[in-house]
């Protein structure tokens, strides 16, 4: 499984990013290869449609699982259409969450908000 998690800093021991669409990085972790790397979230500074663009980045990274504290409805639509599984992050680092997921200890992400988009 390839896992994607929003991140505020490029450190796998750092915290999970507070926002899905607006966090500056994504931590991409490959469970089979046991390696992780960071990609920049080019949607973080988008004026609009950040959730859609951010979700596209994770689709392009071939993520099969996304772990996030919350998610906007547009991003959720893209991720679900790409058959990506959505889990809610817990307190702790990015790697802590990878391990929690591995142990089946993360719950499904169900609280999808309407987005923060304003015109």
């Amino acid at each position: 499984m390839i896992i994607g998690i929003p991140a505020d800093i490029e450190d796998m021991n750092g915290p999970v990013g507070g926002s899905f669409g607006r966090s500056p990085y994504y931590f991409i972790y490959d469970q089979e290869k046991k390696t992780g790397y960071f990609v920049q979230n080019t949607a973080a500074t988008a004026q609009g449609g950040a959730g859609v663009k951010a979700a596209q980045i994770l689709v392009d990274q071939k993520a099969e699982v996304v772990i996030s504290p919350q998610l906007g409805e547009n991003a959720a639509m893209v991720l679900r259409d790409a058959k990506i599984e959505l889990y809610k992050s817990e307190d702790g680092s990015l790697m802590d969450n990878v391990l929690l997921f591995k142990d089946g200890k993360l719950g499904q992400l169900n609280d999808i908000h309407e987005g923060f988009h304003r015109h």
Partner: protein
Amino acid sequence: MKIAVLSGKGGTGKTFVSANLSRVIDNSTYLDCDVEEPNGHLFLKGPVLETNPVALPIPVIDDQLCDGCKKCVDFCQFNALAYTGKRVLVFDKICHSCGGCEIICPQNAIKEIPREIGRIEKRSYEDTTLYTGMLNTGEESGTAIIDELLQKVSEEDTVVIDCPPGSSCVVMDSIKDADYCVLVAEPSIFGAHNLKMVHELVSLFKKPMGIVLNKTLGDENPSEDYCREKGLNILLRIPWSDELGRYNAEGMIAVEQKDEYRDMFRDLLNGIIEEVSI
């Protein structure tokens, strides 16, 4: 001549000023550009004579023709498209209807089709013609409706444009064709702050403008202080009045109730005409 009536916040009296001003002009046209909550028709009452839907072109993707090249996704500056591995998703409300994706698609898999976002209603009240823009609930931007409203009038018409509150895109759109802007302000610190916002906006557009101080109380008025500080022309002071409040609440037009109000708004109109002709 086109006179735009605007204010930095709701409830200052834009519609009150617009409705009364339109009724001291012969054969006036009233454009209600406050498309999220239009209310001019509560004063200028009349049956709807015409309804025109307003639609925006939105891309529709033929999944059979799409080969997943993602050129449209990369092209879209508004992030309205996403490719999920099997198909392209279109986010209608993010789309700005630029048409770029249709042009750029090498497979000709994208066609634009109209999606209704609201409507324009035409009414007639005495010798005033009223066009009301109405944005459907849940839509994000009414600029397309305002653009169509502005197409309803010709150069010879004398037009009152009732603008949306604030200083966002829809307000800019509403004043772009105006010959003169009337800024309505309340006598409070909040009112003065909102007056400053619209004053700065109208200044950017280099439009001539004048101020109506509404609901004045006879004592301190931060909005009046702001006008003095910036050298703004105060066209009219409308004192706080239970009577005017009652007329408003009952959807009555003050200039039709009492000569003193008719004289007040005639003076306002003459003041505007004088300014525009300079």
